[in-house]
């Protein structure tokens, strides 16, 4: 049983609930143990850096420190949290001065961080630690001919430059084919969804969402799969507004990749938070036949 220090992040308690439940389901189905970091705090998201950089690092550092105590890798399902954690971690390793400031603050909470535990995104854990082979073996319900648009978004990829390919990554596609779906190849998969602009500059954000929907729909995707609650909300919840703004009729379901994995692993839709969407994922349910009715944890 692989163990990890799990950092859900605020969104998974509210807007991203279904991400949370499906993550838990899939994790236990794949023999991955996610121990929630006790009494974690908000990572500051993107709205914090504008106020104070150091403070932003400290917020994340507190969670990292707690993870370090357990000696486990720090895993975040939310791309924004992941990006903040990843860079806080690597910067404080590189920059002794920064580390000193951070730890001075952490002292007040009798914590200390040295950047020893690795920071991972949930999807990496499934892909690299569990592995395609392992997942394939556990798939009872391949999502045959389901055309999925893998949406990476920004923060999971950038500003990192040290992973496989910044501009044209392939691992998400790999995961989707592993669960039997067919990933579509579309250019916008790493384009930004607008992030917090949805609040601070609605017009801009809607336009960015529109372009993503346009590209996915033009490639006749049945569903868009996301790796981040922020992206998920922007792409799903605001489709109505996009339609109103631009006179389009988009109505394409948006699912967390964990939800799709769950279906493929034969978990009942209800337990994956499917059915709570703004844009019905009913079409997904078609793929949910022969899911075990009883789940034994």
């Amino acid at each position, binding site marked *: 049983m692989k163990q990890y220090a799990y950092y859900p992040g605020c969104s998974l308690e509210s807007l991203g609930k279904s991400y949370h439940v499906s993550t838990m389901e899939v994790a236990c189905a794949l023999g991955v143990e996610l121990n929630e970091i006790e009494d974690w705090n908000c990572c500051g998201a993107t709205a914090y850096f504008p106020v104070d950089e150091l403070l932003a690092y400290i917020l994340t550092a507190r969670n990292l420190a707690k993870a370090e105590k357990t000696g486990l890798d720090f895993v975040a399902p939310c791309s924004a949290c992941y990006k903040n954690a990843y860079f806080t971690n690597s910067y404080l390793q590189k920059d002794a001065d920064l580390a000193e400031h951070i730890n001075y603050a952490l002292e007040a909470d009798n914590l200390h961080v040295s950047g020893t535990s690795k920071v991972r995104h949930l999807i990496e854990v499934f892909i690299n630690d569990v592995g395609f082979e392992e997942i394939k073996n556990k798939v009872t319900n391949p999502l045959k001919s389901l055309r999925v648009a893998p949406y990476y978004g920004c923060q999971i990829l950038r500003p990192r430059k040290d992973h496989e390919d910044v*501009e044209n990554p392939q691992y998400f596609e790999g995961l989707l084919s592993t669960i039997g779906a067919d990933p579509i190849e*579309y250019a916008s998969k790493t384009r930004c969804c607008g992030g917090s602009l949805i609040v601070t500059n609605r017009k801009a954000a809607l336009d960015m969402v529109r*372009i993503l929907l346009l*590209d996915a729909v033009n490639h006749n995707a049945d569903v868009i799969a996301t790796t981040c609650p922020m992206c998920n909300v922007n792409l799903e919840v605001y489709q109505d507004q996009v339609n109103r703004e631009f006179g389009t009729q988009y109505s394409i379901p948006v699912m967390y990749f964990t939800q799709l994995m769950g279906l493929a692993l034969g978990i009942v839709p209800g337990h994956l938070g499917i059915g709570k969407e703004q844009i019905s994922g009913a079409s997904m349910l078609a793929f949910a036949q022969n899911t075990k009715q009883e789940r034994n944890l």
Partner: protein
Amino acid sequence: MSERIGVYVCHCGTNIAGIVDVADVSKWAGEKLADNGVVISRDYKFMCSSLGQELIQKDIKEQKLTRVVVAACSPHLHEKTFRNACKGADLNPYLCELVSIREQDSWVHTDKVAATAKAKAIVSGGVARVIHHEELEPLRVPIHPATLVVGGGIAGIQAALEIADAGFRVYLVEREPSIGGHMAQFDKTFPTLDCSACILTPKMVDVGNHPNITLLTWSEVQKVDGYVGNFTVTIKKKPRYIKTEDCTGCGICWEKCPKKVVDNVFEAGMGNRKAVYVPFPQAVPKYPVIDDVNCTYYLKGTCKACEKFCPTNAIDFNQKAEEVTVEVGNIILATGYDLFDAKRIPQYGYGKLANVFSNLEFERLCNAAGPTGGNIVLRDGKSTPKTVGIVHCVGSRDKNYNAYCSAICCMQSLKFAHLVRERTGAEVYNFYIDIRTPSKGYEEFYQRLLEEGTRFVRGKVAEVTNVARIPEEEGKLIIQVEDTLIGKQRRIPVDMVILSSGMQARHDSKDVAKLFGISCSADDWYIERHPKLDPVATMTEGIYIAGCAQGPKDIPASVVQGAAAAARVLGKIQQKEIALEPVRATINEDQCSGCRICNNLCPFNAILFHEDKMVSEVNLALCQGCGTCVAGCPAGAISGTGFSNEQIQSQLDGLLLLNISHEAVLVDR
């Protein structure tokens, strides 16, 4: 104190004097180093000037100097100068020591006091060292008159012809089946637009027919032994499977060959060739090559169509690779460049979006001898583009790929723009960061393009996509870029995109450099001896470089370097013999215990052991003077000329005479 030493501190204008208090240094040396034998110490504006040298010579004569220390620039720059000055005054040149207070002091430090202190230390080091110098004579070795030229591109061709015309033997080694290099693939050449093949092929033919040139194509250098004047080079001739002595180059074999192969080398993947082929019609030599990776016979064991039809029975399927060794005195490396692989920039869509072309692909596309007979068409092979976007600086001037400017892309792109407009009348956009036309007739060509109405957008292209947002973009390639001159992002729909990929060093340039004992820059280009004053020589005597192997450059510059390298080699050959630094190791028989430790330390097998006398001896002809054996000898029986223990240890004492404290107080020891 027997030696009479003169110390000369150079101002080098303000280069040294600006930071180092030269007057103080020379005064200090005159006083404090008097007991070390310094009888005179001067500072002068430019020691290397003839006046400066005369100054030294005058002192040598009048002051009866037996040793000279010059504190100026790096010995790699002016050691020869001052040694010759001494020679001119009948003082053995090796009794002169040049210590560097410029490259290693005034240019790299800012604190005047510390720099001056360091200069003093360096001088005292030199003084202490020079005492132990001994009179030496340079070793003279004969120079073999033959020359090896590696690489049959335009630079190599030029070099080979210059030397051969002067009446000396040249071995020209080329990796591909034919000489010609990249230039043979181009259609037109900027800025004159004359046909590349038309000006190149005559030279290629000259090479092929030249009595003094031994052409070794489809061959690679395996091994290089020896040193300047006397290199022994082992060359591997890959099997052609053609008896060149019988082949007439009639072409029936490749006519009859049933196997089509995509030509990724010469046609850049745009066209096909047969399994037995010559890369292009004007190839030199005319003999074809059988590509044993794709030939049906080697795959299935049957076919042999070529053999059946060959009128002169020149086909030989059993031919094996052979090794030839040649003796040469000098070597010229003109190994050229690789094209930057645009696939490394996914956002430009090369390899994903059909109508994104690389510059080499486009050269073939608009080449009359190319796959489309010079018709500029899209990948579908028929439709002509109505709008074309040319992207500059692909992989160049970009720290994510190559930080340097590839020098030729601007002019090349302008050339493309002209050809497209001329042949298709299409609307052409050039996307550039800066337009660089720093050569004769280049700026005029740019003006001409402006007059022709080619559109120029100043901005580095961000991405090329096929995601249409508005009807006008449907079915087009959209170039997304900021037009920096109006400060707006633009999305420009085009039918065809040409990427002006930059140049980069050959993928194997590091290995080749190692093979020939020269060094590479951070970007893997070969390093010249001096970036301005000695651009074609290398740090290794007898090895010269020319063309793009040294750095990105266009055809004229490559030709210039090829000729320059040839001139340097001819100069050496004419000297008949060469003087080598007498830096060698010698073994004192009486002290040698015969332990043979040194024997295995020498990579040149220069140390032989005399069983009879039970002592080792150094073969001066083979010894390269690295001094490892000197350091290794437990009995201290080996001494290294020019770098003896005494010399180094006393230089050490000299350097440590002063501490670094900003007062530069003397150490009392």
